[in-house]
């Protein structure tokens, strides 16, 4: 037990010669790792000896006195803060019979009435304490702070987690602390060679969060900020880091819209501030202080240290005119003191399309379509021509190259095809004849298993002078659709160097280069060509590949999207960010941080269409060989300077004051050109083109300038107050409104730190903080660079000459959109911090909305962009973190859940003389009042995103039933048995536009997620889910396919199985199928607009960390293996390819959606 390790005791003789004395003092000064300048004492009635010991520890000065002197002293009460040594001594010796002198680094005490020096020697004893700090997996932790309690003596651990502290005799306790871990007090009485095990701090409420221009402990935070749990970022490969946020930040709506590797999800905070374009209200993205105009695209997730989302106006006010849609702050990894490591990680994955809509088979299609032409001929006799034409189900096809389909009547001449795998069937409209066809499932040709790999190599190190971090990443991802891919090379180098004791310089270089191959047209690939009838020719008789179908919008994917006829091209972005800054600690507590950064983004694109039968097999070879090239360069410069003052007054008044200046400049240069008529396919770039058809270039700039400040105050961490504000000006605002002032204030109360709390929670197992904030933000997104000045466009030509046309109406009153947000919340820790709870309610009112106001058509303009209207957004957010099992348990299980609810109300719209100043909407009969009302659109008192449609009531079983109704939308069509029964709301016998009802809303109400993290010994298991409720989605591909609104293309397999075919099909789910839905059987309705609530099993990942000893044997610091699955399953009733998105299921293009992919991956990480 008794293992205290004594260093050679040093005996100091009072009478020693001064030279020896100095030598010894200096030795001691070295052994104490730092000498405090200021002394703080708060003692009540303690012995003078104790006080002197404290002064000795804090000052580093030794004391020379005799025990006899102390025997005459009385107990001391003393209170000093940040006092000098002299002040502290004076205060301590005030009522004592002793005086003091400071001689060469030592304090010599004397009896007041005795001029003699002390004649008795005093023995001072020091001891060295050594030990090691490890985490709960036994991994050494470098950089941990170890401090002797009550003193400033301390040290940090080295790469092996080792430390050594020289402490004064009698020290009893070490404080061991490390960011992200729970601090510990370790008793060292009589011990040395200690091993300290630090446990990772899962308690959210003590985490450090990055705030605008600084960081803060959540304990002292009074605004609403969410920090992404970093465990989400590990083990799972993300080609776009935005997808890691899905379901992980309460109030942040993240929607995966595409399976294209690298595709950005749509990210909207708290419903966004816009009424026109709420889906475009993206937050401000800032990485290492650099604003990222392209959001999270092309950032290597491996480089990222932390992601935080600033949500309320008080936290974002410091970003002024651009903060109202929230701010997402990313920081990259940095080198750490004493931690040197080279690390390599690899991830390999295989992906497949998650959900694909199944289309009908060829035989079903022939039956349905031929019958449908006959039905349709009642309305349009010309349709009968399709029965004998060279259509997908027509008999006009031949084996020659000029028809696109295989369907034809069986003849002696073509009978041999039946032996070559062709099928036959009776002609549904004339069973005496036999049809033959060859079926190909074209949709299957679009998809493949996409293989991807990701490599990341990093090297990092640091001393007390300098740190550096370097990371090199390479990602190559294949999409699950043929020919789609994403490749990224990224490079990150950052470092800091202490130039002087009080000046630190840091610099950073971030580079990424990505290239991407996307499908030429989402709609053409994912729902048009996917629904190419199976009877289309895949190859001609001579074995050459056939374009199939009609043209490149509905054609053979292997012809149009792969191989020699497919569009060629490439697009990419090269991104360079350079950042340079200094931190100058002017005097204690006061620092100045100037920085400058440059971001250059070069985006390029070229496309080329080789000569091909783009218009189908019957038309000529198209040789226009269109080539395009686009080169866009964005250059962004930022200069920031921040002055910070930190001080604690009277011990408990903590103040942080900050003032700063920020300048932003962005220049965009775009060039694009299109050429045609190249002589060959050999040169895909513009130099091959004979004829320029478009040549265009632009150059535009934007500048912002702002001054800001923040004042943080807390009293004893109990009462918290933050005030911040920014004064911002932007070049793209109207002359009268160039500048704006954006203040934010927030306050918090850590109730658990109050004395009375002891009676409620005597064991101090709870944390409880109430906070509230209010702030004003701006938004200028969507304003063109020179919008207030109006503009005339020069695009287009007339008779070969350049015209100039008025395009934007000048609006010198254009100003920032202003949001005022009130946020109230609580941070609650329960059960000894095993449960933490963060709740928020917010109420945001946005005025002067940047709105596109519809103009009377007789102005000749459709709209003007101006500031009009007010929108209220209210919501609730909840984050829960639970350590399900006790700290001692070997199995650890953290459950974290979050949810956010958003509700929007339109308060005010531009006055336009219409009831409720309505814009848009559907004019409909209201059976309740018997009058007409406007549904949806924008109306005061209403909400946004309302979807309207017809109400499906079933199917007419007889012609007589159907005869009573007319359909006004399609030329008073008569209806027959098999047609859809639509609710005739006003009972006037005619189905018309006014017979519509509200069938949903495109925006979600609730979004959130549940995450489970398990660890057991060397294993870890993460299960991530997320959900969305309240949003409806128009299943556009199914609506178009089943209504056959796209032409000669397949309906869904579900329709083929459940469609009405003849009277008596009472269980049929779908009305009769007819070319172009001539009787209006398929329209936007409560059938085509589906509820899109879902729960997604987003990620499951299992990891194994090699035991330390094994790793060491293999000369490694550590190693880890993971397997994971991503986008595993949607639990939803939605029948389309993905329930995410809201509105129209188009993914931004008319009807085409790249299905989300399900990915399985294997990861490996080794550190040397």
């Amino acid at each position, binding site marked *: 037990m008794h293992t205290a390790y004594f260093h050679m005791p040093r005996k100091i003789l009072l009478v020693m010669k001064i030279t020896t004395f100095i030598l010894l003092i200096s030795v001691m000064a070295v052994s104490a790792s730092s000498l405090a300048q200021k002394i703080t004492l708060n003692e009540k009635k303690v012995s003078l000896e104790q006080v002197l010991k404290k002064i000795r520890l804090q000052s580093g000065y030794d004391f020379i006195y005799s025990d006899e002197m102390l025997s005459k002293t009385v107990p001391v009460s003393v209170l000093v803060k940040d006092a000098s040594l002299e002040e502290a001594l004076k205060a301590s010796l005030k009522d004592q019979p002793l005086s003091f002198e400071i001689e060469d680094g030592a304090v010599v005490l004397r009896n007041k009435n005795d001029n003699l020096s002390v004649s008795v020697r005093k023995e001072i004893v020091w001891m060295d304490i050594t030990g090691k700090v490890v985490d709960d997996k036994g991994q050494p932790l470098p950089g941990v702070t170890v401090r002797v309690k009550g003193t400033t003596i301390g040290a940090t651990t080295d790469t092996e987690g080792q430390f050594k502290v020289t402490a004064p005799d009698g020290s009893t306790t070490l404080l061991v602390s490390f960011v992200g871990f729970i601090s510990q007090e370790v008793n060292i009485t009589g011990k040395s060679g200690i091993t300290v095990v630090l446990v990772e701090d899962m308690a959210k409420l003590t985490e450090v969060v990055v705030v605008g221009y600084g960081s803060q402990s959540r304990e002292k935070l009074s605004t609403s900020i969410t920090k992404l749990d970093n465990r989400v970022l590990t083990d799972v490969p993300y080609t776009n880091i935005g997808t890691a946020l899905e379901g992980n930040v309460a109030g942040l709506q993240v929607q995966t819209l595409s399976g294209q590797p690298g595709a950005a999800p749509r990210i909207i905070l708290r419903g966004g501030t816009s009424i026109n374009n709420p889906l475009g209200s993206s937050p401000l993205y800032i990485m290492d202080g650099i604003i990222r105009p392209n959001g999270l695209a092309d950032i290597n997730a491996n480089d990222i240290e932390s992601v935080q989302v600033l949500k309320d106006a008080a936290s974002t006010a410091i970003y002024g005119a651009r903060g109202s849609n929230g701010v997402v702050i990313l920081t990259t990894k940095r080198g750490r003191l004493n931690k040197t490591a080279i690390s390599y990680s690899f991830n390999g994955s295989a992906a497949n399309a998650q959900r694909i809509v199944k289309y009908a088979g060829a035989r079903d299609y022939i039956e349905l379509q031929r019958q449908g032409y006959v039905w349709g001929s009642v309305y349009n006799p010309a349709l009968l021509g399709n029965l004998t034409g060279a259509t997908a189900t027509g008999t006009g096809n031949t084996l020659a190259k000029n028809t696109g389909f295989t369907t034809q009547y069986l003849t002696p001449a073509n009978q041999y095809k039946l032996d070559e795998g062709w099928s036959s069937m009776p002609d549904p409209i004339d069973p005496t004849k036999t049809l033959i066809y060859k079926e190909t499932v074209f949709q299957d040709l679009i998809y493949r298993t996409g293989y991807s790999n990701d490599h990341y190599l990093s090297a990092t190190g640091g001393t007390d002078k300098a740190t550096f971090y370097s990371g090199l990443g390479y990602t190559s991802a294949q999409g699950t659709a043929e020919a789609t891919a994403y490749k990224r090379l990224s490079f990150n180098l950052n470092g800091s160097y202490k130039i002087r004791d009080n000046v630190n310089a840091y610099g950073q270089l971030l580079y990424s280069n990505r290239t991407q191959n996307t499908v030429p047209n989402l709609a053409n690939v994912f729902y048009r060509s996917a629904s190419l009838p199976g009877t289309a020719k895949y190859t001609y008789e001579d074995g050459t590949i056939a374009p199939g179908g009609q043209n490149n919008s509905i054609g053979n994917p292997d012809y149009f999207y792969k191989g020699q006829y497919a569009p060629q091209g490439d697009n990419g972005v090269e991104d360079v960010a350079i950042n340079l800054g200094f931190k100058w600690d002017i005097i204690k507590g006061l620092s100045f941080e100037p920085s400058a950064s440059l971001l250059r983004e070069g985006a390029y694109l070229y496309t080329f269409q080789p000569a091909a039968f783009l218009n189908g097999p019957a038309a000529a070879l198209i040789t226009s060989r269109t080539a395009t090239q686009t080169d866009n360069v964005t250059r962004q410069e930022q200069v920031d300077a921040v002055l910070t003052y930190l001080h604690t007054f009277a011990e408990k008044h903590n103040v942080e004051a900050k003032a700063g200046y920020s300048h932003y400049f962005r220049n965009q240069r775009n060039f694009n050109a299109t050429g045609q008529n190249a002589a060959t396919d050999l040169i895909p770039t513009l130099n091959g083109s004979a004829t320029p058809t478009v040549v265009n270039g*632009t150059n535009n700039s934007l500048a912002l300038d702002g001054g800001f400040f923040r004042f943080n105050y807390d009293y004893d961490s109990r009462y918290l107050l933050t005030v911040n504000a920014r004064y911002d000006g932007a070049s793209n605002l109207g002359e009268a409104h160039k500048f704006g002032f954006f203040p934010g204030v927030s306050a918090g109360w850590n109730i658990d730190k109050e004395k009375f709390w002891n009676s409620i929670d005597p064991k101090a197992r709870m944390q409880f903080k109430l906070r509230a904030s209010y702030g004003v933000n701006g938004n200028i997104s969507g304003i063109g660079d020179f919008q207030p000045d*109006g503009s005339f466009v020069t695009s287009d030509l007339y008779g070969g000459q350049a015209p100039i046309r008025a395009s934007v109406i000048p609006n010198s009153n254009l100003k920032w959109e202003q949001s005022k947000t009130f946020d109230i919340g609580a941070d609650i820790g329960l059960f000894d911090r095993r449960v933490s709870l963060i709740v928020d309610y917010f109420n945001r009112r946005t005025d002067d909305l940047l709105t596109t106001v519809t103009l009377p*058509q007789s102005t*000749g303009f459709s709209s003007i962009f101006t500031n009009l209207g007010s929108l209220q957004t209210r919501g609730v957010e909840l984050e829960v973190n639970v350590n399900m099992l006790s700290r001692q348990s070997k199995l650890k299980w953290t459950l974290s859940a979050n949810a956010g609810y958003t509700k929007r109300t339109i308060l005010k719209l531009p006055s336009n003389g219409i009831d409720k100043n309505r814009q848009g909407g559907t004019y409909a009969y209201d059976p309740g009042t018997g009058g007409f009302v406007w549904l949806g659109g924008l109306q005061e008192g209403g909400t946004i995103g309302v979807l309207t449609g017809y109400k499906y009531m079933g199917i007419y079983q007889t012609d007589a039933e159907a005869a009573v109704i007319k359909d006004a939308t399609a030329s008073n069509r008569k209806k027959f048995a098999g047609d859809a029964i639509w609710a005739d709301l006003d009972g006037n016998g005619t189905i018309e*536009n*006014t017979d519509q009802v509200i069938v949903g809303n495109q925006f979600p109400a609730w979004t959130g997620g549940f995450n489970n993290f398990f660890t057991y010994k060397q294993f870890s298991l993460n299960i991530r889910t997320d959900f969305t409720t309240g949003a409806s989605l128009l299943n556009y591909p199914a609506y178009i396919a089943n209504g056959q609104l796209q032409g000669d293309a397949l309906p869904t397999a579900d329709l083929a199985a459940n469609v009405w075919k003849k009277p008596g099909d009472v269980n049929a789910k779908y009305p009769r199928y007819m070319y172009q839905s001539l009787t209006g059987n398929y329209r936007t309705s409560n059938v085509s607009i589906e509820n899109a609530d879902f729960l997604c099993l987003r990620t499951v990942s299992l990891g194994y960390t090699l035991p330390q000893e094994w790793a060491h044997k293999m000369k490694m610091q550590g190693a880890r293996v993971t397997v994971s699955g991503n986008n595993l399953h949607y639990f939803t009733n939605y029948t389309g390819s993905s329930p995410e998105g809201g509105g129209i299921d188009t993914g931004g293009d008319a009807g085409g959606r790249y299905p989300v992919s399900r990915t399985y991956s294997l990861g490996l990480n080794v550190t040397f």
Partner: protein
Amino acid sequence: MLILSLAASSSCKKNIETTPISVITSSSFFKTPDDVAGALRGMYVDFRTTAANDMFWLGEGRSEVLTGAVAGAQGFDKFWNNTLSASAPNADNQVNFWKNLYAPINSANLMLKYVPDITFPSADTKNSALAQAYTMRAFCYFVLVRAWGGVPIRTEPLEAYDASTINKPRSSVAEVFALIKSDLTKALSLYPNITYEAGRNTWSKASADALKADVYLWTAKMLNGGQADLTTALAAVNEAQTSDVGLLPVYSDIFSYTNKGNKEDLMVVRFQLNEGLQNYWQTMYISNLTNVSAATLAVVGAQGVGNTGVNTAQVSKLVRDQFTTDDQRRNGTFFEIYDNANKYITSIVTKGSGMVNAGTRNFFTDVVIYRYADLLLMKAEIKNALSQDPTTEMNLVRQRAYGTNFAAHIFVSGSPAANDDAILKERLLELCTEGKRWWDLIRFGQAFNLVPSLAGKSGTPGLLLWPIGLTIRATEPLVTENDAWK
């Protein structure tokens, strides 16, 4: 806080100054004659947008000329079936009728506001610019007033948004015609001469005269303008005839892509490759045609693609059958397609079939606003209404049409009513699918008699106006619906 704000604002002001490089701002524009030349062409680009589709559907969509074809109707069948309603007045993609017609009006208003204060080296150039703006405004209002009756009159350009003044109620038909006539008077006094600009794709004195004749002919017949208006109209035609204009011997040459701005044209809207929109004839062509003879395919040539060149509408059998086979206008207007079993499939337009570029058909035939045959037939109509003999004009048109077979088709003047019938039919044959027929039917009072889908509805003459419709009225709260459509 205040100090910070002040410090920031003084230093910031110049830090956030940016220079528009690629943008013409309102304050920098309309200073030089070159600006005006650009703005003039801009006005024609706006005009081209409405001419590409809307003006045709307004001017012919509801007549007997059109009927359904093999492709889906996309809502266009509402026009020829005359099943328009106030809630569904448009085809699927034809919802900006007013906006597209008022856009050139706004461009003209900008010209009329700024050009007078700009110094030109030549007064003629300046006057010509103003004259073209006046003519443009007159023409667009003429289309508007014939389609919808009294419409809002805007004679000032929109340069700022003011919610309280932005809306305008409808003016009366008489007020609109007063504006049209006054604009034409100003225009005709400003044109420096009666020559055409190259390409004949801008307004000129002769085309303004043609418009004047058209306007006065309309007010003579529809608004009791009587002899006075007819006389004015005739004078305008006579003046237009003094310009360099005549009939081309070969009918199809008028519309040939390689013969743009030919001598028959008084005013066309220019459509050409790499210049914006393809026009309405694309809805009357065909795509995906097979199972027909090689000879047929040869006539059809490159087919349409997707929604461009799709067989949505065709010239109706009723109209096709009125063309005799010895009329060169028959092949110059449409082509009937029969399958290999000699069964009729559909017809396509040969007029307006555009051009083929690298294997792809592009519908870039110029849209003719006025051409000489139209002018001659207007003259015939005016003369007949003035009880003068229209034979000369009728026979000039027929001579070209029938060529060597003219002898069998010589026009002989009969009663004024018979002459009117003949003139109306001649206009049908001559100007088929040129967006004139609906106006002709109204002017001759024959809409209810000749359009099958309007048969029996003559009790509601208000049906001849178009419904303004919810889509337009939703943006124009002061505008009321036409009575027949309420």
